[in-house]
């Protein structure tokens, strides 16, 4: 997640900056940041989640700790996946836009009250190194620290819980999965319905039936697992049409 503590935030700090523009005095729509995020989403969808996000990596490493793993029942997992959309709409868009202080300035609600990433990547190191900051610690830091501990603990037993249930950036990119340039494709002729792709997917997606699900982070584990090489990731029908035409001409 690009928060201010990442050098990538210099170009476009997505969630934080979106809120910074929404909660500014002018109460403007964040065209630059939304446009940038839409562009990324339109090109690669949630590929960012699997291959670039540092907090995603941290969760994956925690999940590698050898413990029994928890399977969240579908009747709990499925509705809980919508929580990140609620967080995106309410805490990233609505609250920073409408709730104002006496000076006319809003707050970055998601960053301030929920996001554990800033606490981990910025808060804890800064507080450890700076005595003056340590003296300012209050209830907010304790709350954020508690949320971080919960997230870290959950990541040991559940695969990427923050990505599945909380992350508004993943929610935003997920909206573009079905329209992105780079997509997951299923070769129906090669697929034998063995179900190996669904069993391999740790995001609980069935790549055979919903290859471009909003929940897919495009990690390609299913592509590697498929014994018939029926799954691929590319510029969808462009690639497959070219292959088909070549085969038909032979």
């Amino acid at each position: 997640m690009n928060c201010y503590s990442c050098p990538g935030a210099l170009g476009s700090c997505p969630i934080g900056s979106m809120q910074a523009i929404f909660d500014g005095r002018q109460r403007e729509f964040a065209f630059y940041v939304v446009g940038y995020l839409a562009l990324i989403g339109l090109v690669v969808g949630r590929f960012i989640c699997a291959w670039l996000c540092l907090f995603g990596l941290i969760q994956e490493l925690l999940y590698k700790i050898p413990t029994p793993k928890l399977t969240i029942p579908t009747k709990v997992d499925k509705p809980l996946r919508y929580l990140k959309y609620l967080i995106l709409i309410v805490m990233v868009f609505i609250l920073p836009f409408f709730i104002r202080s006496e000076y006319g300035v809003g707050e970055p609600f998601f960053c301030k009250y929920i996001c554990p990433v800033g606490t981990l990547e910025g808060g804890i190191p800064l507080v450890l190194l700076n005595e003056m900051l340590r003296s300012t610690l209050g209830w907010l830091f304790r709350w954020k620290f508690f949320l971080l501990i919960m997230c870290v603990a959950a990541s040991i037993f559940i695969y990427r819980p923050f990505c599945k249930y909380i992350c508004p950036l993943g929610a935003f990119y997920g909206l573009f999965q079905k329209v992105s340039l780079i997509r997951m494709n299923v070769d129906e002729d090669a697929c034998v319905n063995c179900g190996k792709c669904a069993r391999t997917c740790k995001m609980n997606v069935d790549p055979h039936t919903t290859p471009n699900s909003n929940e897919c982070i495009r990690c390609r584990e299913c592509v590697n697992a498929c014994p018939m090489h029926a799954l691929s990731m590319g510029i969808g029908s462009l690639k497959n049409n070219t292959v088909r035409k070549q085969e038909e001409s032979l």
Partner: protein
Amino acid sequence: MKRAIPLKVTLALIPLAIACMAFGIYRGEVATVLAKAINICMECIGLD
């Protein structure tokens, strides 16, 4: 193999996203992003 949403839709939306970015740059939003990126956001790290 059928594609749920045609590629042309994607190719039509990309310029729209770029136009959105361009409008934001024109309005000076980049300075806000940079200010957010280079200043420590006390709220983000849990210091109120």
